């Protein structure tokens, strides 16, 4: 199986792979940013004193976390047009990955929120801050700095999840690797090189987040 390896077909397609990687990164970055925003809002809802907010946000998190991403993507791309919601191809995938990311990140942020010492919140209340001011100026900064270690896991996962876009014909990295394989039948060469790309990018993401983590760490 490892005899007669010939990577020429892979080198010939480097620009296609680069295009695919760029597209995967774009999809990941947009979905992670939007998903984080949703995650933070939902995390506050999950820990809210208002019951209806907790019920709605719990429903969202439980519902989405129990459905595989591919099914969400296929449903949005093929199913929603039946009820008149026709999003573009990229938009459909970003929509799917964003609501998927939001559900997982909400739990990460919720963990950060409940670990904030009560005393800090009470200090804010004693200073006369409103609930919104406490959330925005006290809880949020602490939250963002304390969840950094947990975020890298999710961000790496979400980047790898962009490979699911190939199922709706988005020409990201996995689609390009598969295309090389289909065109040349150089299965081991195509998939081994593609795997290496994913590995290096994920290591890169983890390293960047580590740097941020160290810079923004809450001093102990």
């Amino acid at each position, binding site marked *: 199986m490892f005899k007669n390896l010939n990577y020429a077909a892979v080198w010939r397609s480097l620009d296609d792979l680069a295009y695919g990687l760029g597209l995967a990164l774009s999809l990941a970055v947009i979905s992670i940013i939007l998903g984080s925003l949703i995650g933070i809002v939902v995390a506050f809802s999950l820990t809210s004193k208002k019951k209806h907010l907790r019920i709605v946000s719990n429903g969202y998190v439980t519902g989405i976390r129990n459905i595989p991403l591919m099914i969400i993507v296929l449903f949005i791309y*093929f199913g929603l047009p039946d009820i008149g919601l*026709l999003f573009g191809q990229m938009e459909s995938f970003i929509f799917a990955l964003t609501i998927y990311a939001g559900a997982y990140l909400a739990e990460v942020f919720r963990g950060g929120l409940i670990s904030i010492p009560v005393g800090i919140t009470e200090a804010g209340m004693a200073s006369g801050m409103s609930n919104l001011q406490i959330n925005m100026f006290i809880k949020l900064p602490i939250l963002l700095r304390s969840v950094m270690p947990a975020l890298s896991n999710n961000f790496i996962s979400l980047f790898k999840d962009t490979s699911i876009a190939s*199922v*709706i*014909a988005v020409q990201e990295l996995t689609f390009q690797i*598969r*295309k090389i394989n*289909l065109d040349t039948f150089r299965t081991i060469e195509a998939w081994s090189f593609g795997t290496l790309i994913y590995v290096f990018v994920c290591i890169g993401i983890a390293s960047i987040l580590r740097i941020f983590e160290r810079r923004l760490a809450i001093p102990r």
Partner: protein
Amino acid sequence: MNKQNRIRTSFAIISVMLASLVSTSSANAAESTLQDVLKRGYLLVGTGSGNAPWHFKDASGKLIGMDIDIAGMIAKGLFDDATKVKFIEQTPDSRIPNTLTNKVDITCQFMTVHGIRAQQVAFTKPYYREGVGLMMKKGSKYKTYADLRKAGAKVKVSILANVQATDYVHAALPNAKVLEFADPALSVAAVDAGRADAVAYDQSSIGWLISQFPGKYVDSGFGWMPQSYSCAMRPDDQVWINFVNQVLNEAMSGVEFEVYKASFKKWFGVTLPQPRIGMP
């Protein structure tokens, strides 16, 4: 020689004589598959599963499809009974090996005739000419191939991801945008959901979908990239090859034409014109 040696020697001579008798008789008989099948009482056919309308299973688990019907036509030529067939399900890459090693008498499994395959197996005359066609949803703004062609780069065509799939589409619609999906069902779903204006799909499958979902789809009327589907047999059995070809010929233009015509209508929704009487 002592007594024991003599017995051994005569035993050896007798076995050699018997062996040569057996081998001579089998060499003389040089039985064609035709005689073997007639003696056996049923035809052994290699085919696949899961590919409508060629070979797939109905609700009761019975194999049905055009390939199944073709096998039945050959069985009718043998036993006057189209049901005297036993099917061996095989994967596409077992088609040639199973045929060459006599695991099956013949393979009828939407097999495209290529020069490279014809070097290993003998093909019957083609019983279908497959091509790629374009299928649209009924009610689409594109009604025919000419409409699709005129729309140029505005048209989106979905297709199964395949070697040079994009080139196949561009051979018919040079400026169309191509969406390649991992399986054919998704490429058809893309047309259902309005993601693509047309799907480039096997002409036989288009015929099947249109007949299964009346009023849902429309055939663009344009087919390209012809390829022949034939059955495959061992190449050294001329008697068998001649017999099968004769049976298929009579099915497609002779005494069994009505059977072939009915299968064609059932699986592809197409009514064949009657063969012209007179010069064959």
